[in-house]
C-alpha cells in the first residue's frame, strides 16, 4: 500500500532539522487528497474529462511523493482517461481509487503516529 522509502526520505529530512515534517506532510496530503477525490468523483459523474484530468494529475503527484503507489497509479489511469476524453471505465476506476485511498490513509496515519515528539 505504501512505499516505505518515501516516508523514509521525509524522516531523513526531519533528522536533519525539518521538525515535524512527516506529520505536516501527511496531514496536508490527506486534507488536499480528500478534496481532490471528491472532485474526481464529481468529474466522473458529470463526464467532465478536463476536470478529471486536472484533479487526477494533482492527486497523482502528491500521492507518489508520499509513497501511496496504488493511489498514484489509479490517478494516472484516470488522468489518461481524462486526457483522451474516453471515460469508459472511469466509474470503476474512481471506485477503486476510493478504496486505495482509504488503505493509503490508514497506512499514512499509522506512519504519522509512529513519530516521536
Amino acid at each position, binding site marked *: 500500500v505504501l512505499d516505505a522509502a518515501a516516508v523514509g*526520505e521525509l524522516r531523513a529530512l526531519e533528522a536533519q532539522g525539518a521538525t515535524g*515534517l512527516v506529520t*505536516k506532510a501527511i496531514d496536508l496530503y490527506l486534507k*488536499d487528497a480528500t478534496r481532490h477525490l471528491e472532485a474526481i468523483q464529481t468529474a466522473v459523474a458529470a463526464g467532465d474529462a478536463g476536470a478529471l484530468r486536472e484533479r487526477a494529475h*494533482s492527486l497523482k*503527484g*502528491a500521492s507518489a*511523493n508520499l509513497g501511496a503507489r496504488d493511489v498514484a497509479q489509479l490517478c494516472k489511469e484516470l488522468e489518461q482517461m481524462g486526457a483522451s476524453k474516453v471515460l469508459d471505465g472511469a466509474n470503476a476506476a474512481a471506485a477503486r481509487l476510493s478504496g486505495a485511498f482509504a488503505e493509503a490513509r490508514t497506512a499514512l496515519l499509522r506512519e504519522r503516529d509512529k513519530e516521536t515528539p
Partner: protein
Amino acid sequence: MTSDTKPRHPIALIVDDEATIRLIAAQALQIAGFQVEEAEDGPAALAAVGRLRPDVILLDARLPGMDGFRVCKAIRALPGGETIPILMVTGMDDDKLREWAKEVGATDIIGKPFNLVALSQRLRTLIQGGAGEERSAC
C-alpha cells in the same frame, strides 16, 4: 582571485499547485542550503521571477489555468528570464511532453516522484552548469 564566491544562499523558486509537494521540496532544498520561495500558479510564478530573480526554478508542467509550458515560455520572455535555469517537472514516460518542455525553453526535465536529495543536487548542477544551456533529460 580564483572565482567569485558569494556567501548568499541560491534562491530556488518552487512552482506547484500542490501544497504537499511545495512543502516537501521546500524543506529538502532549505536543508540543502537554498533560500526557497514558492508560487502556486503561473501568474504568481511570473511575479516572483520579476521580484526575486531566482537562481533556479522548479516548475510543474501541469498547473491549473496557465500551464507550466506557458509559464516557462513567459519566463523566457522576461528581462533576465532567458538565463534562469528551469527544471520542469513532467511525466518522464511522455516523450511529447518532454519535447514540448524543451521547445518552450526548459533547461532540464525531472519526473515525479523525485528523490529529494537528487533534486537539490540537480538544481545545484543546473546553477553551476551555465544558464540557457539545454540539457538532455535523463
